[in-house]
């Protein structure tokens, strides 16, 4: 027999008590995916849902910064148990990088994603929110493969460039039969307006939840959860 990677065999088991998985995507960088994913996780927790947040943007992880997860670290107990950050069960490669960059090629990204999914013990969750990397590269494709129940929450901006990329991304998800639950138009008067107080609230979940950004995001997504 050829060498057998055992890790994928347990990934579905790790997720069997997770009721709903929402992958926050957008194929352009800088459109607010991570802030949207992190804030969404905080809003769901505030509503009383057991919520997890997985930062899958391995080479550009930023949810830990947005949540202010400075002292958090997973606990070892027959696997890795994600720490609670402001009530959200949170897992990120940033726990293991010591604040350094994580320069990974595609095959390394897949290996790291499989490793994290195989050893992370999420337990019972109502919602798992995934902060997806920009584009549809290795980590994003791995997520769609290993989270077959996931639905997409797409983020875009009013920029014609972002909208063009969005159009193509939605066509790909449709072709892959991945359900798209909704679309958040960020930095837009028609969607979630640009919030001048947002930057100052990053790193402080309490402040973040009180921003106009969080309130509008909560309003727009209220029927999805």
């Amino acid at each position: 027999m050829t060498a057998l990677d055992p890790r994928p065999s347990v990934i579905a088991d790790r997720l069997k008590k997770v009721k709903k998985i929402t992958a926050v995507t957008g194929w352009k960088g800088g459109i607010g995916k991570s802030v949207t994913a992190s804030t969404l996780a905080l809003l769901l927790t505030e509503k009383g849902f057991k919520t997890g947040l997985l930062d899958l943007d391995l080479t550009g992880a930023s949810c830990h910064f947005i949540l202010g997860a400075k002292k958090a670290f997973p606990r070892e107990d027959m696997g890795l148990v994600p720490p609670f950050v402001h009530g959200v069960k949170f897992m990120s490669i940033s726990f293991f990088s010591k604040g350094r960059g994580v320069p990974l090629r595609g095959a390394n990204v897949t290996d790291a994603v499989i490793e994290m999914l195989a050893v992370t013990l999420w337990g019972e969750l109502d919602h798992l929110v995934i902060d997806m990397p920009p584009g549809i590269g290795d980590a994003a494709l791995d997520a769609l493969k290993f989270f077959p129940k996931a639905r997409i929450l797409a983020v875009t901006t009013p920029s014609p460039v972002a909208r063009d990329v969005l159009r193509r991304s939605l066509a790909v998800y449709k072709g892959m039969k991945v359900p798209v639950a909704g679309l958040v138009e960020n930095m837009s008067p028609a969607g979630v307006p640009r919030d001048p107080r947002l930057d100052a609230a990053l790193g402080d979940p309490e402040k973040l939840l009180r921003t106009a950004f969080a309130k509008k995001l909560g309003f727009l997504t209220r029927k999805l959860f």
Partner: protein
Amino acid sequence: MHEWALAESVIKAAAEHAAERKLKRVGEVAVVFGELQAIDLEIFPFAMKELAKKRPLMASAKFKIIKEPAAFRCRACSAEFDLKRFRKESDEAEFIHFVPEMAHSFIKCPSCKSPDFDIAAGRGVYIQHIKGSK
């Protein structure tokens, strides 16, 4: 103790593979431990044995442990190197233990200092072979 999660994957994957081959009993599972991940060589075999007891197909399996040295090849200058020259701080070793790809954050090519290298061998845990009877 996160070794238990990986040991569980070995037992489940081996049992699934044996079932596909219609084996009635698994006699031996050869498990490779890559040097980079530095798996605990006491906990992991113990965990495999304990977990195997819960699956009739695997209950009498022996586990052959094969240690594989880490080997790296630089993508920038093609230099080949190993782990011996690197002195990782204890927390860095722990982070690589959890996710071996973190080596790219802490190890650089000794020739050109690039973090862009392939882990050619000795990354982590995999099953080399499964022997059993039909």
